[in-house]
């Protein structure tokens, strides 16, 4: 179980706290989704958990062990990250790109072993992109590249998987495809998956738990049905929505008043 406790963060020269005591938990084998409008602190929470930014107060526990102050080599073995904005550099093959996930397992002065290659191929197999293995990862579609980055995170063999808005650059079909894959992998490998999303409908469809954040506070936290409600959405986003129950599914439908 991943536990975030009393997270407080402000920028170096910032006036106000961006996070004002964020606390929630995420379970193994489940997807926990952080929702919130732009500027709510969603990305800050993400960066603090990822270890890229240091919170002033609070801790991040995994299995009752504090992982907020680990050196990056050790952190990478606990926690794998799929970044939102990935600017491709050189035209590495998909296999070479996924192999980079093994960096924390390979000695500083060595190159990846047969075992590392095996793990990379396994991860590629898991996300279902074996046919792209030899292709340059810069010359495939956005959805495929997202899968490559997920495979890279899986090759890291960390129990926690963080995804920062994994659907933001994807078309309708790829959004469903990628999130479906993530859910399957979370179940199969018993990973603790934490991601941020913009679309409450996608959050409703794919998460086991939802955390709604606004202005550095947690607004609501629990099963998606109790968090993603008409009231909460109106309060946080300031728009009127209706939630329609249809054949057991809950659909969030914005009411456009003219």
């Amino acid at each position, binding site marked *: 179980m991943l536990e975030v406790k009393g997270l407080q963060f402000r920028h170096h020269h910032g006036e106000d706290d961006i996070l004002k005591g964020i606390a929630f938990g995420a379970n193994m084998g489940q997807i926990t989704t952080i929702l919130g409008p732009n500027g709510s602190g969603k990305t800050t929470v993400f960066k603090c958990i*990822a*270890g*890229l930014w240091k919170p002033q107060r609070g801790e991040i526990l995994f299995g009752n062990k504090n992982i907020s102050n680990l*050196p*990056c*080599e050790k*952190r*990478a*073995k606990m926690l*794998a*990250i799929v*970044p939102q904005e*990935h*600017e491709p*550099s*050189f*035209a*590495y*093959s998909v296999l*070479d790109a996924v*192999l*980079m*996930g093994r*960096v*924390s397992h*390979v000695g*500083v*002065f*060595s*190159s*990846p072993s047969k075992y590392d290659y095996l793990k990379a191929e396994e991860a590629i197999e898991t996300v279902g992109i074996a046919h792209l293995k030899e292709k340059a990862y810069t010359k495939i579609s956005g959805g495929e590249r997202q899968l490559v980055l997920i495979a*890279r995170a899986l090759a*890291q063999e960390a129990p926690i998987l963080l995804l920062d808005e994994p659907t933001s650059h994807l078309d309708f079909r790829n959004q469903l495809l990628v999130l479906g894959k993530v859910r399957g992998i979370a179940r199969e490998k018993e990973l603790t998956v934490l991601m941020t999303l913009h679309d409450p409908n996608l959050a409703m469809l794919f998460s086991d738990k939802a955390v709604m954040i606004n202005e550095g506070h947690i607004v609501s936290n629990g099963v998606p049905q109790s968090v993603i409600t008409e009231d909460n959405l109106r309060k946080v986003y300031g728009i009127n929505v209706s939630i329609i129950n249809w054949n057991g599914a809950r659909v969030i439908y914005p009411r456009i008043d003219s």
Partner: protein
Amino acid sequence: MKTKSPIYLLILISPFLAGWIAIFIGAYNVSPFMVLKVIAGEIAPFFGNPDIPERAIILDIRLPRVILAGLVGIALSGSGVTLQGIFRNPLVDPFILGISAGAALGCALSVGFFPEAPIQIMAFIFGTIAVVLTYTVARTQGEVSRLPLILTGVIISAFFTAMVSIVKFLVDPHKLQSIVFWLMGSFSLADWNLVKIAGAGIIAGVLPIFLMRWRLNAMSMGEDEAKALGVNVKRERIIFIGASSLAVSIAVSVSGIIGWVGLMVPHLVRMIVGPDHKSLVPLSMAGGAAFMIFADTLARNLTALDIPVGIITAITGAPFFIYLMKKGGKESWGR
């Protein structure tokens, strides 16, 4: 390294081929077989080596020059590929980032004013100052963007070149001549003593790069991603930049400023074998050695004079840079 195709092997042995050709071409004609015979005789003395003039020409004049050129090629190309990797920028090399200009100032100071300060150490100190300056000025918000990095390199290079000019202006005329000639970049002073110095310094510089080369893949993903993958970015950048700076400074101290090699060779090799640093780094080093030996052979034999090889690399390098810029278009300049 996986030998994926014969072309890998060809690149790896190219320095030896280039070296062999370089030794038998020259003002004094030596047959290709004589070269092999004399070198074999030296390695395995039981063949016996007759005391003929060719022996002195091959062993005392041409061989050290070829080895020195090869070492300098390894240093320049090896650090070029490293810097391109960690800055995720295909348009940089030690020359563009100011290491060469910094090292040149160190050497000029040592030759001109402080003969008691070892030239190699002065070169290393000033080369490192230059690249660290370029890096810190260009780095904003945790990332080093492409265009600012190149512009900063140009500025820092210009500054150090101006400092070299001050040294040239103040120094006594006898020393001025040797500084000016040496700045143009040449292997004409090569001897076994220089080979020893360059060998020790350059190997000390490129060895960590060679051993850690696979990590350049992860580092080329950018600072945040490399960190998330488990790379200690700060520490490893220091190692890579320090090692590159050492190799280049030693190269500059024995041969002067030879530009563009570190840009051109890694590019050509990347076009052939792809961007995976696991094979790109050793092959760039081999290609750099071969290119340097080849360019020096041209410099020696193109005219009756021994033209500084730095002029040859600059003449080929500038059009190459323009070609890359035009071809890469927005991609190579982006961000």
